[in-house]
């Protein structure tokens, strides 16, 4: 028998850290900084400009850190689209790609126009006879069109098969830019009179700082191109974050040097008393750098022209590549018409996506001035940055237990939240800089939402989604009816939950749904999850045999990669009011307090949660509720009232005072306050207060004491910290682990917590 040789395929990982760094630099540093320096100098003076750039740099570094964390956790992703989709779903992913698509096209138009500005002046200087008679603005447009057209043709010919093809431009740029900045400052040291340009530092006060920050933001964006190299990068979890963070920081330092150089390049008028550099240059607007570098003579001016030209062309090249790739990807995913995914049979390039990108660049050049393009790019980049900062929070909260991280940003989630907040403020200020492009950006977003709802959502190709419901007996509760979901991974657990579920659903007159979670290994695509269908059906059949006689139920089998995430997504989709789940009373998973499923569910659940341990199928005569006045104490009492035997059961509200409480808790008063919300005779709710320094030991002793005959303990969950849910051990967790009696942990969904939990 002849054996066929097995052929396997793998991606070659050959992009080193230095190439990643250069790619990130290349996309970040373009013409934007030269325009930003001109604008900022005019409205804020040199001091305001430097402060704005430094603060923008800080924002950009923080955003780069969020981006780096996402990249390290999803190194094989295709960038912002995947981040948005993983965090907020396909609709959000589409919106991110939609915004990024226009941002890349507009950045291309911007860089083409800046390159054309310098190139047209060089043409006039070299061939005055030919070009001198033509209006300069017309010549600029023609050159810009030709540049954009040339790059579309260049890409169509297939000369740029990967994002690395522009790396030569970047190397040249990274030599010329520091040379221009440091050389100019060194030249000013020889002629110290140029440093008088630095005064006054704040000629226009502080009012111009925020508009400058908003306007200059576009110059700090672009590093997202690195994520597309994740599948080809060497040690991507390590190198992608490093490249993104270092390139952003390097850009900040370079920008500050360039800003200083642009100011000291101006040659003050003889005598130096007539007018300051700010007075002389502020009227030049975004082209201040051009006017300023005239003060360095022909060599300095040529160096500026070549540097800006190369930076612009490098960024234009990357912009065409990026926007084509985005529209091609959307076309292939069915989110744009399928024509966008068409590949030229001759050139093997995505010709429709490419030509449409070229058309958009041309339209952008026709519709907006350079300043308008800068505002439009900045507005779109701010929207994307806000999206990244929110996505990083949500992905770590939803998938933090299952992803492999190579980098974690500090001060989570305060830092990304604060940065997103500042970016929203900048976005508002951007409207004041130039309202028309800002409104265009807004209209583009609205158009994207409408397009997605009317077309994209219906035509999207099914991808390997994170979750998939294969079998569901849908019972639709009437609006406003209380919805109870019982999540079970093990059918045996479900049987022990019958009585408790029955009691709680009866008390709330609610519907009950059994959600059976079946995990599908990472190696198996969700599209092939059918092979696990039998396993799920067998479990459901067993549960039906026992449960359906007791309760009116519906059943759903849900296939997922991770049980906790499957539960949380199910709760959101079903708009559940109460989740009931079982707990075996211990955890084998390192790093978790109660368990690898229960901890994330308690942290992220958008609804009330009741966790049940060893609850026997019997009536509970003495239910202990240890309370300390926390936000879940009242809910714990409510749950106890639902579970206790209604004929002759009693509830004991137990409070242990250690003496260190900021506010003394009064158990009697607590019972009085909550008497109205529990459907249970007030006289059968007792209180017991004990003074003891050893709170946990005392509570456990009381519970375990045979004299007390406690047969059920209901604990209110300790509120997790919204700022850092991963740290700290709570009294409730200690008690829960040590308690040998039947136990229930109750957690109420707060209004704010639910809202934040639903979005982040």
């Amino acid at each position, binding site marked *: 028998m002849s054996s066929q040789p097995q052929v396997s395929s793998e991606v070659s990982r050959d992009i080193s850290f230095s190439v990643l760094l250069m790619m990130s630099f290349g996309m970040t540093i373009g013409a934007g900084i030269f325009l930003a320096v001109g604008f900022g100098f005019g409205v804020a003076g040199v*001091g*305001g400009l*430097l*402060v704005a750039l*430094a*603060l923008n*740099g*800080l924002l950009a*570094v*923080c955003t780069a*850190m969020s981006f*780096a964390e996402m990249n*390290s956790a999803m190194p094989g992703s295709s960038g912002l689209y995947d981040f948005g989709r993983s965090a907020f779903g396909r609709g959000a992913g589409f919106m991110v790609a939609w915004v990024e698509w226009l941002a890349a096209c507009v950045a291309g138009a911007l860089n083409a126009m800046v390159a054309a500005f310098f190139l047209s002046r060089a043409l006039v200087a070299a061939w005055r006879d030919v070009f001198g008679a033509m209006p300069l603005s017309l010549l600029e447009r023609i050159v810009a069109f030709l540049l954009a057209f040339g790059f579309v043709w260049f890409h169509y010919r297939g000369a740029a098969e990967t994002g690395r093809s522009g790396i030569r431009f970047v190397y040249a740029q990274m030599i010329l830019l520091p040379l221009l900045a440091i050389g100019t400052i060194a030249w000013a040291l020889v002629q110290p009179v140029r440093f008088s340009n630095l005064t006054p*530092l*704040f000629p226009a*006060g*502080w009012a111009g700082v925020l508009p400058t920050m908003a306007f200059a933001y576009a110059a700090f964006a672009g590093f997202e191109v690195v994520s597309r190299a994740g599948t080809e990068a060497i*040690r991507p*979890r*390590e190198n992608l*974050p*490093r490249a993104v*963070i*270092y390139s952003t*920081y390097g850009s*900040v330092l370079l920008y*500050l040097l360039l800003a200083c150089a642009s100011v000291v390049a101006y040659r003050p008028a003889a005598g130096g008393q007539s007018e300051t550099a700010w007075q002389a240059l502020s009227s030049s607007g975004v082209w201040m750098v051009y006017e300023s570098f005239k003060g360095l003579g022909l060599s300095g001016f040529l160096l500026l022209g070549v540097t800006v030209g190369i930076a612009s062309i490098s960024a234009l090249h990357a912009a065409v590549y990026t926007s084509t790739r985005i529209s091609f990807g959307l076309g292939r995913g069915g989110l744009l018409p399928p024509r966008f995914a068409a590949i030229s049979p001759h050139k093997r390039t995505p010709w429709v996506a490419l030509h449409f990108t070229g058309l958009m660049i041309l339209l952008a050049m026709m519709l907006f001035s350079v300043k308008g393009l800068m505002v439009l790019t900045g507005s779109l980049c701010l929207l994307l940055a806000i999206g990244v900062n929110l996505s990083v929070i949500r992905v*770590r909260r939803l998938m*933090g*237990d*299952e*992803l*492999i*991280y*190579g*980098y*974690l*940003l*500090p001060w989570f989630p305060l830092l990304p939240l604060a940065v997103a907040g500042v970016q929203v403020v900048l976005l508002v200020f951007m409207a004041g800089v130039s309202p028309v492009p800002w409104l265009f950006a807004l209209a583009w977003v609205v158009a994207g939402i409408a397009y997605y709802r009317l077309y994209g959502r219906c035509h999207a190709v099914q991808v390997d989604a994170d979750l998939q419901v294969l079998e569901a007996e849908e019972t639709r509760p009437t609006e406003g009816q209380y919805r109870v979901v019982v999540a079970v991974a093990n059918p045996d657990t479900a049987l022990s939950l019958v009585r408790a579920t029955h009691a709680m659903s009866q008390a709330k007159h609610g519907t009950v749904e059994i959600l059976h979670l079946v995990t599908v290994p990472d190696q198996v695509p969700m599209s092939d999850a059918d092979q696990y269908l039998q396993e799920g059906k067998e479990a459901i059949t067993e549960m039906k045999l026992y449960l359906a006689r007791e309760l009116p139920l519906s059943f759903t089998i849900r296939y997922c990669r991770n049980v906790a995430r499957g539960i949380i997504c199910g709760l959101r989709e079903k708009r559940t009011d109460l989740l009931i789940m079982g707990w075996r009373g211990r955890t084998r998973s*390192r*790093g*978790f307090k109660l368990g690898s499923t229960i*901890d994330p569910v308690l942290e992220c659940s958008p609804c009330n949660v009741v966790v049940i341990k060893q609850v026997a199928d019997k009536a509970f005569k003495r239910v202990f509720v240890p309370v300390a006045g926390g936000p879940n104490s009242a809910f714990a009492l409510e749950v106890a009232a639902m579970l206790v035997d209604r004929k002759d059961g009693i509830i004991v509200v137990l409070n242990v005072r250690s003496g260190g409480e900021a506010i003394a808790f009064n158990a009697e008063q607590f019972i009085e306050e909550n008497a109205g919300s529990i459907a249970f005779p007030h006289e059968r709710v007792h209180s017991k207060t004990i003074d003891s320094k050893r709170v946990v030991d005392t509570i456990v002793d009381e519970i375990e004491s045979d004299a007390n005959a406690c047969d059920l303990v209901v604990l209110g969950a300790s509120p997790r910290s919204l700022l850092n849910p*991963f*740290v700290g051990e709570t009294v409730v967790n200690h008690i829960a682990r040590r308690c040998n009696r039947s136990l229930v942990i109750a957690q109420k969904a707060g209004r704010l917590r639910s809202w934040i939990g639903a979005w982040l």
Partner: protein
Amino acid sequence: MTPDGATIAGLVILVLALVLSTYLVLQSRLTIRRIAQKHVKSARLLLQELKHE
């Protein structure tokens, strides 16, 4: 010539922004290196490990 209040405030903000950016970059560098030496998987475990060091 004595610098005015705006100049001093501007310089302080500038220096603070630069120092904070530098700190964040250095701290990130350290975090990446420390995580690269570990064989833990999730964000939760990494935070615990990093916290204990």
